[in-house]
């Protein structure tokens, strides 16, 4: 398969691993931002190819993981309404809220539909004018343009029965939050390639300069990830701190201007709560006032309740790199993918779930 096989080539990967081992003279701690990268690292065992002093911290870039419990509860309340067709990406189905999950809401009669594209939800709204269609709009800057497109199309078609439950998040404020923590350990970042494909590098140039931290825009195949690590290590060893684009086959320096214009037309920046990390200023997107009629929270009056996380969950420490998933006392016992206690176990791309699946597989 072109654009895949050449980035999974065993010999090229062995050569890069040797280059990393040769360049790293000191212990370094890097964070891969995106859950897709975490998944690839753990699935292919790439961290086992790295020198002993090099630590990878698994970042907060899993949209399923960081969606707050209160928003999940809103989603479940909306999906249970008799007048609502609730559209979601598939991996939100089994994420538990305070009392239930979308699988169970569906089993009890809720009209929950899986969509692969937000535009399918718009088509559903047009096809069934007597029902309310709500789209669960979660994700990073990768999903925001398509969700914005759904709103733009619904507006253009004059649909009055379409709305968004919006929990969109932005990556740069979360990176800043981690860097400003007094006990921050992260010395270099592998930035999320697909987020940068939309946003470009400008936001990251500012972070690299301000915090003097190397940021390498990195893809998702094994060779991409090792390449990102190698470039990050080379910068650290040389005392440099800049943005490098190691994913130029997908990421243009100025991103995708068309997608950004659409996002900016529909959404505005707001504060957002991240599961595991808490409130982060300017880290979310909300519908602009001109599109407020598409806001499901407003339309149905589902206020966010005071949902409390299980006290034992330490996903905040995992997300900040202070705790390895397998070092958590609840890991694999009181906290499993079937009974997740918090953010990093709820999705396959969460660090704890990836470790559970590939490192500490239970037999039942």
């Amino acid at each position, binding site marked *: *398969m072109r654009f895949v096989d050449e980035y999974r080539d065993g010999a090229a990967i062995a050569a890069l691993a040797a280059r990393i081992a040769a360049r790293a003279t000191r212990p370094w701690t890097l964070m891969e931002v995106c859950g*897709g990268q975490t998944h690839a690292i753990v699935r292919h065992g790439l961290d086992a190819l790295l020198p002993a002093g090099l630590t990878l911290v698994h970042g907060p870039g899993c949209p399923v993981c960081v969606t707050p419990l209160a928003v999940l509860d809103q989603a479940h309340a909306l999906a249970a309404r008799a007048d609502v067709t609730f559209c979601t*990406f598939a991996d*939100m189905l089994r994420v538990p809220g305070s009392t239930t999950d979308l699988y169970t809401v569906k089993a009890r009669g809720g009209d929950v539909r899986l969509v*692969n594209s937000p535009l399918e939800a718009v088509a559903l709204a047009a096809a069934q004018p007597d029902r309310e269609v709500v789209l669960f709009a979660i994700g990073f800057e990768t999903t925001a343009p398509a969700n914005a497109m759904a709103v733009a199309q619904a507006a253009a078609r004059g649909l009055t029965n379409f709305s968004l439950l919006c929990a969109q998040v932005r990556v740069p404020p979360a990176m800043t939050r981690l860097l400003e923590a007094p006990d921050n350990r992260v010395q270099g970042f592998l930035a999320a390639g697909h987020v940068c494909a939309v946003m470009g590098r400008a936001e990251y140039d500012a972070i690299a300069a301000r915090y003097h931290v190397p940021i390498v825009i990195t893809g998702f195949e094994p060779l991409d990830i090792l390449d990102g690590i190698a470039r990050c290590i080379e910068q650290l060893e040389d005392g440099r701190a800049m943005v490098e684009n190691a994913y130029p086959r997908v990421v243009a320096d100025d991103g995708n201007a068309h997608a950004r214009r659409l996002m900016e037309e529909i959404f505005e920046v707001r504060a957002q709560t991240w599961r595991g990390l808490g409130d982060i200023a300017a880290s979310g997107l909300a519908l602009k006032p001109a599109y407020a009629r598409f806001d499901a929270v407003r339309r149905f009056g589902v206020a966010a309740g005071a949902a409390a996380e299980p006290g034992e969950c330490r996903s905040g420490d995992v997300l900040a790199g202070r705790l390895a998933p397998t070092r958590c006392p609840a890991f694999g*016992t009181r906290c499993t993918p079937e*009974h997740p206690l918090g953010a990093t176990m709820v999705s396959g791309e969460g660090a704890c779930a990836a470790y559970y699946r*590939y490192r500490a597989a239970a*037999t*039942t």
Partner: protein
Amino acid sequence: MNDTVACPLPRDDTDCVTLAHGGGGALMQRLVREVFAAAFGNDARHDGARVDSGGRPLVTTTDAFVVKPLFFPGGDIGALAVHGTVNDLAMCGARPLALTASFVIEEGFAVADLRRIAASMARAARAAGVAIVSGDTKVVERGHGDGVYITTSGIGALDHGLDIHPRAIAPGDAVLLSGDIGRHGTAVMVARENLHTATPISSDQGNLWPAVAALLAAGIEVHCLRDLTRGGLATAMVELARDGGWGIGMEETAVAVEPTVAALCELFGLDPLYVANEGRFVAVVPDGQATAALAVLRETAAAASLLGHVSAVPDGRVRLRTRYGTTRHVALLSGAQLPRIC
């Protein structure tokens, strides 16, 4: 893992069956163990069961078939219903003798489609040398079924003295894979989602008994067989390791996936190891006979491979050596595999 010791949470806090229970993963296995195996008091470790008839032992099995769409590239629910049960018999090393079939049909279902399905079943049964000897038909109200559901049961004869069962798996055994994986699941997905691929994908659904019969005829002392169905190769391997009690090592490079299947899995974020198959199996055989057994399997499918070996570690876990030489565990999925957001 002993749930009651390791997990102080309620063992299952859902009070109704969800679609996740149908995925062939950990949730379904728990449901079967805690509801059916608990009530019937039987051993749920194999695809069929041996029944003592006073003379030669017989094997029985049963399987229900629900698939959307009913017709897909490479097959349909009728052929699937025949082959699925024939294959479960074959996995016990049993020569299929006879099948029964029952149909739950939704009000409004086209008789022409029913004829097409029946003809397909007849064709598959004839080719497999097995008769469909009795059946039952029920009709449910519109909206209470998905067109048609078919359940087939089968009986088969054991013509050999082997104990083909997870308990026969022994350290050092070779594990063979009978061909490329992931075709049925992706073919059905392509049909269901109306996708178009440059190279068509055809389901691998088919009769596994000829390949098993050839192994037995070649004198292979088969220890265990398992067909790859809903949960894919990974789930079959986890079950064999768990039920046999030994660790199993498998090589990522030994797993063949057709390029179009691999590409679709990439697009949807699916792992081919967990994608459904309906015409592939793994065979656990003595290591000394691995080469001979592989030659037999390659007469049916050129992509058949030596997947790995049973280890002497009695932990019932599956370890996969990646193409980069690193090792990871292979686990059951919780429920069905789902496309990812990004």
